[in-house]
């Protein structure tokens, strides 16, 4: 008798729960539709003052810095996905992050790359990136790589080779700095933005970072440099073909048959290069390798 009652009670509860959700779910969906307009609030910082935020953290500034760093990364990712060309909140978010935790190196390095990079790759604010990195150097004097990041902004984004050289030279004075820092200081001053120097510096960034976004960015630039090298070399060989035959080659197969190529040349993403009737080399339409940016015309 009792078990029958309990069983009935169980069924009634289950029915109530199911019935409740049957109403709750469509009600929530209706609310979502009606409240969509109210929820479209503009991106905001929550707390614009860095110093106030640090004081209000009540000693949990490390935790709060992590939250702001996560916000900065998510904000950057979202703006990129939405293909927006502006990142107005990136600099303030990173500044708040490093005020809360001045030892959060990843924020300086990330900011150094993506604040300085031109849109749509970054915020196009190299001066803010320089300010951020100088703060990082002041708070972390034992981190020589921040000098490398600073020098690289002067070198790549601003093409200010004396300033870049000075930054590398200053960083090279650190007892644990890599020996190539001093070499870079001299090479940049002497050769400016040549492609070999650019390749070395991007390779160094690619190998030293733990941040996947920074690594992808460095890989993309290295792809560009390799494609520029390839195109230059292929155009030189096409010119050699014309010197021999008196006409431009019509296909890579012709160049291979003439002993000028060993196979179908492909860009760093694996897409075959395109040979134009006038001997010019272009990228495959599906290729995502970019050729329209770089430190200086010389490097292209």
């Amino acid at each position: 008798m009792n078990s029958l009652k309990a069983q009935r009670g169980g069924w009634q509860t289950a029915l109530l729960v199911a019935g409740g959700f049957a109403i709750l779910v469509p009600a929530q969906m209706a609310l979502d539709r009606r409240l969509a307009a109210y929820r479209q609030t503009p991106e905001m910082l929550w707390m614009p003052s860095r110093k106030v935020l640090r004081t209000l953290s009540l000693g949990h500034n490390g935790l709060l810095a992590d939250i702001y760093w996560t916000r900065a990364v998510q904000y950057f990712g979202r703006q990129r996905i939405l293909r927006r060309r502006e990142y107005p909140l990136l600099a303030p978010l990173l500044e708040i992050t490093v005020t809360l935790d001045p030892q959060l190196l990843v924020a300086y390095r990330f900011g150094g790359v993506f604040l300085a990079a031109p849109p749509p790759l970054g915020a196009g604010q190299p001066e803010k990136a320089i300010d951020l990195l100088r703060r990082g150097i002041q708070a972390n004097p034992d981190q020589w790589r921040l000098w490398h990041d600073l020098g690289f902004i002067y070198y790549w984004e601003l093409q200010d080779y004396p300033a870049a050289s000075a930054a590398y030279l200053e960083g090279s004075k650190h007892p644990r700095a890599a020996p190539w820092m001093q070499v870079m200081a001299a090479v940049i001053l002497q050769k400016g933005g040549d492609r070999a120097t650019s390749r070395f510096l991007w390779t160094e960034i690619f190998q030293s970072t733990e941040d996947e976004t920074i690594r992808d960015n460095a890989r993309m630039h290295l792809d560009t440099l390799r494609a520029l090298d390839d195109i230059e070399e292929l155009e030189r060989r096409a010119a050699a073909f014309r010197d021999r035959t008196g006409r431009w080659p019509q296909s890579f197969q012709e160049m291979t048959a003439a002993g000028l190529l060993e196979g179908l040349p492909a860009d760093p993403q694996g897409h075959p290069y395109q040979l134009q009737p006038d001997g010019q080399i272009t990228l495959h339409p599906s290729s995502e390798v970019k050729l329209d940016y770089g430190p200086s015309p010389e490097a292209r």
Partner: protein
Amino acid sequence: MLSQMMFSQTLAIVLNTFREAVRDRVLYNLIAFALILIASALLFGEISIGIQKTILLNVGLSSISIFGLLIAIFLGIGLVYKEMDKRSLYALLSKPIRRSQFIIGKFLGLNFTLLVNTALMSVGLWVALFYLMRRFEPQDQYLWVAIYFILLQLSLITGLCLFFSCFATPVLSAIFTFVAYVVGNFSADLRVFGELTQNGTLKGLSTALYYLLPNFSDFNVSAWVSHGNPVEGSVILLNTLYALCYNSVLVAAAVWIFSRKDLK
């Protein structure tokens, strides 16, 4: 002989305070919640990039600190009041026990409870750290310094709670302690404010408050050690000395107030 008897009596109060605290369900809820939060830090780390370990350590240390603070306040405010409310204090004081022994025993008992709780939460943090990294690194040892400083902070909270609970109701004691905790975190700003002002009285007042209030920001090294940075031995020694002295003052003041309290 007398001192030995006094020691064993105080020890009995310490252990009794601990036993009473571990019977409280609130304690287990708070510890469980802190451990869940530490475990969830493993997921928070996935959202961000490059700092999974830093996030885990910051969330873990903040959880230990915040939940330790809640435990210290919840248990601390009732230390004296509960005994009076349940009338058990009268039975205790009818025996040859001094009021100072009662206060010191209560203070040490709650500190012992906090030590055990913090140890439990720390084990949770170390397990989560091992799960994330699959190994420990030499610089992870500095985490112990951050945990030790959290314990020192909690002992100051306990001292404050005990002091306030000697003359105020539990609710008021909780409010006073929390306000002291918040203001104690602002004490550096208080001093800067004093230095900036042109008014001599204000400057003197802010400087006096700076030294009078417990300076909780001195114990905040969590963000620093989460990057594997070491903490100087002199800082550890000075913070220990500071907490010992401040707690001695608080307990002495609590004993003084409690000794003059009319318990009829």
